[in-house]
């Protein structure tokens, strides 16, 4: 199977470049569906723990190769081993789903570019999209360090190409290059980590990690790995590429990048955590602190944004923070040898990976529909979108409720797991642990509250009220092709929210297997908890429907009047008097002043100015880490400029440098330093 599949997929992806434009989209869709099905079948079987893949498949060789989770591809240069274990299988399923919804959505979204872009650009776009998919699957299945790094690099390059879709915009170009540079900084960390592994064990592979960790310092290697993966995942302070790259990319790409690509960082962290053997407590503590900080800071910055996609991008950082809090809790549980905490923390984190991939791609897709219709994503210029696009608004609302972690949708389920874990942890260890976990708890509640604040702003200002600027072109609801993938995602969000145990059982199974936990009695009580939660969620939905029905019934026979919004006595209120995103965020930004700065450009009215002239007001949120990074790069540029003096262009000088270098080597050899 693998001997056929891998060349077929690679060759197929190159054919995208030559397929005629009329069939290109359908060809790409078919290819991605083919790749997804072939990888999803063994992954799904592995994930639910089917006996088919227990290793001793009896039966004909076709089914054995179809359901095989160990693929060995023999090429000219050597062989590639692809392994789908339980952890990979979960991430593969998440990836495939989001990539499929992304390609479905892209058809409608890219129509707007049909006249602007030439066929070669579309072909390149589809080609890179397919390669992003392939490379993510490779990252999830390869264990060998070198091939893993190559797949990791392919992922960075293909997503770089995808961001570059609107390369004619200068800012996009700059953002994309910035993204590529930062990805390589992460890459260097991973390379160092793998080289250390090889130096320690003689083998450059994830499989060698347990041997390395058994004999070496655990913290150092873990932290290097963590730094490398954190750049991808977007943990603060490694996040600065994220809020730039997501808005620059087309919406379906933002959805895939934010939904699944940054989760490759989480996958990497979990993959390494599985092998860590000691100092788990400290490692867990570090993850917890970094994550709580990322979560809080991410959502605070999100509130300050004026660009809807940038706001969503900062929310990715927040959600990565929530996932990280779960991972940290789970690791602390490992350190304390408390399987309950491990289970709750990791299952909450992994479920949140799935959940975030769903609601974040949904939010990016519906935002993309708004962009396509209104040609702007500036929150302060939009308004009343719900009247033109009621379905998109409903989908965005579902995503918003889910991302705020509110019942009855899926975000609540993963957050409640982490919450219960944190509350259980309060009395699990020393008093210092209690305080740490309480602070994590406080961050989690604050993140929840701030997310509600942020999405009441995002949804309320953009979709509700009346338009803040005049729209000169006709606006209509997004076409069915764009809504359909969003319905799929929304459906899954509701299903996870109402029937969480279907997804939670295999996840718990996964964590018990990967971390070698014994089956716990907690399983029973946990399913009790979620039965109650889903019961109440269903009651909630029924109750809302009943109340809506009662309302409808009571109003049916009465004459309902319509009029303008009550202006408190004032008769001519204008749409410009409405609350804007900036004014909505203002009182929060005032409280958050010490950590969140924003640059305000405004000329105040003087007392002697009787007839104030035309004025403008602008406010720019300010990411502290961005400016720290800028200072660093500025410093580097300065040093490099000084060093550039060496580069005189005069051949004799270069010969002199070589001569000095040789002398230096001699001197060092003579002094027996080297």
């Amino acid at each position, binding site marked *: 199977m693998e001997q056929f599949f891998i060349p077929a997929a690679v060759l197929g992806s190159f054919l995208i470049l030559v397929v005629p434009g009329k069939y290109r989209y359908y060809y790409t869709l078919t290819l991605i569906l083919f790749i997804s099905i072939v990888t999803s079948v063994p992954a799904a079987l592995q994930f639910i723990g089917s006996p088919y893949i227990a290793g001793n498949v009896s039966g004909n060789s076709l089914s054995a190769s179809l359901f095989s989770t160990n693929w060995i591809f023999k090429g000219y240069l050597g062989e590639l081993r692809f392994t789908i274990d339980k952890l990979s299988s979960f991430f593969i399923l998440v990836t495939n789903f989001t990539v499929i919804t992304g390609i479905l959505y892209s058809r409608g979204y890219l129509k707007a570019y049909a006249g602007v872009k030439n066929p070669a650009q579309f072909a390149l776009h589809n080609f890179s999209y397919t390669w992003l998919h392939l490379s993510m699957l490779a990252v999830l299945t390869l264990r060998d360090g070198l091939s893993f790094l190559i797949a990791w690099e392919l992922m960075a390059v293909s997503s770089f190409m995808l961001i570059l879709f609107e390369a004619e915009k200068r800012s996009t170009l700059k953002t994309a290059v910035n993204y590529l540079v930062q990805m390589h900084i992460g890459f260097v960390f991973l390379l160092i980590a793998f080289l250390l592994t090889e130096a320690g064990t003689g083998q450059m592979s994830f499989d060698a990690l347990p041997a390395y960790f058994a004999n070496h310092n655990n913290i150092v290697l873990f932290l290097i790995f963590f730094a490398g993966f954190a750049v991808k995942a977007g943990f603060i302070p490694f996040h600065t590429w994220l809020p730039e790259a997501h808005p620059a990319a087309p919406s379906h790409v933002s959805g895939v990048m934010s939904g699944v690509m940054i989760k490759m960082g989480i996958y990497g962290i979990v993959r390494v955590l599985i092998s860590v053997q000691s100092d788990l407590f400290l490692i867990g503590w570090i993850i917890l602190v970094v994550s709580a900080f990322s979560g809080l800071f991410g959502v605070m910055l999100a509130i300050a944004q004026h660009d809807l996609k940038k706001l969503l991008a900062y929310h990715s950082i927040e959600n990565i923070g929530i996932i990280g809090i779960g991972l940290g809790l789970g690791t602390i549980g490992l350190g304390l040898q408390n399987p309950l905490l491990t289970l709750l923390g990791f299952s909450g984190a992994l479920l949140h990976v799935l959940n975030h991939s769903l609601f974040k791609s949904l939010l990016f897709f519906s935002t993309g529909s708004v962009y396509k219709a209104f040609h702007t994503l500036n929150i302060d210029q939009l308004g009343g979108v719900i009247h033109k696009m009621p379905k998109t608004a409903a989908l965005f609302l579902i995503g918003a409720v889910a991302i705020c972690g509110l*019942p009855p949708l899926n975000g609540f389920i993963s957050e409640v797991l982490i919450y219960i874990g944190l509350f259980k942890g309060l009395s699990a260890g020393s008093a210092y642990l209690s305080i740490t976990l309480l602070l994590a708890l406080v961050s989690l509640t604050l993140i929840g509250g701030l997310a509600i604040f942020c999405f009441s702003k995002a949804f309320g200002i953009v979709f509700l*009220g009346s338009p803040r600027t005049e729209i000169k072109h006709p606006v209509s609801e997004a076409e069915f092709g764009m809504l359909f993938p969003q319905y799929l995602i929304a459906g899954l969000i509701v299903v996870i929210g109402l029937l969480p145990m279907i997804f939670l059982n295999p996840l718990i199974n996964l964590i018990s297997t990967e971390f070698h936990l014994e089956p716990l009695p907690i399983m029973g009580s946990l399913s009790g908890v979620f039965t109650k939660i889903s019961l109440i969620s269903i009651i909630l939905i029924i109750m809302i429907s009943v109340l809506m029905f009662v309302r409808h019934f009571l109003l049916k026979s009465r004459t309902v009047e319509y009029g303008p919004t009550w202006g408190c006595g004032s008769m001519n209120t204008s749409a410009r008097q409405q609350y804007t995103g900036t004014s909505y965020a203002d009182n929060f930004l005032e409280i958050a002043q010490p950590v969140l700065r924003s640059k305000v450009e405004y000329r105040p009215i003087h007392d002697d100015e009787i007839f104030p002239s035309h004025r403008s007001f602008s406010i720019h949120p300010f990411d502290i880490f961005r400016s720290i990074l800028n200072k660093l790069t500025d410093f580097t540029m300065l040093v490099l400029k000084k060093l550039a003096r060496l580069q005189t262009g005069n051949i004799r000088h270069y010969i002199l440098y070589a001569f000095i270098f040789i002398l230096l080597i001699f001197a060092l050899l003579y002094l027996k330093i080297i």
Partner: protein
Amino acid sequence: MTGALLAIVSAIFFPGIILRVKSIASGRKGPGILQPWNNIFLLFRKSSVFSTTTSYIFRLAPAVYLATICCALMLLPFPGMPSIMGFEGDFILFAYLLALGKLLFILGALDTGSSFEGMGANREALYSMLTEPAFFILFGTLALLSGHLSMHEIFSHFQFAGEFSLITGAIAIYLLVQIAMIENSRMPVDDPKTHLELTMVHEVMILDYSGVDLALIQTGTNLKFVLYGGLLANLILPVNGGWLSANVMLFFLVQAAFAAAIGLMESFRARKKLAKNPQFIVTLSSIALIGFILVLLLTRNLIR
């Protein structure tokens, strides 16, 4: 369900008591105890006026608001009797259900496109965001002290925690009362009886609601009061009772006393300046944090 049913029954007289206490404190005779509900039923019989700016969110919001509060009521335990719906960590669902109602309520206000209602919605979002940590730290403290995670078990074990329960109980009662006041947009942070839309939070958000929708919201608000009153009753009442015992009477008594206390507080306390509100609300979280550290100190010998 005992807790929920009793709370709903006490909701009948709860708003009336607040009104009556306030009128007596200001030297008036005041309306009958059932007058607030009469008003609500009057609203149920009326038709509605909708703003043309509004969408389906505006119509959905009151129903969601009321439904979330009803669902939260189902989680309310009764001293000595486990609630049917209770589970480990039910207070998380409790808080998040209320948050869902609030989110929709905020969106309903923003749906009108009115700058006043935007103002109220914004304040409501900010205050509830700041209140949430206090609630969670409080329950963290109680969970640490009692070693349990469901509201029923927390409250029943809490009372056997010895002398610690007295001091923690005092902090908990203070916090719960203040949280209830903020969540219902009452006195220290908001004055429902002010004449200026600019200075209000809750009342300004419902400016455009009328008829049935307004009735749903007011029903929800009254139920929200008894919800917190019910939590207080659980905290205070002894666990030994059961159905038809003195506890039922005591439950009503606590609710009535809570209502009277709200009336008195509203009569003799001025509303804070709006700009000072966040400070006040964050103080609650710090008090809760002090309570938590106190419990840690007492139970775990933090200083060795």
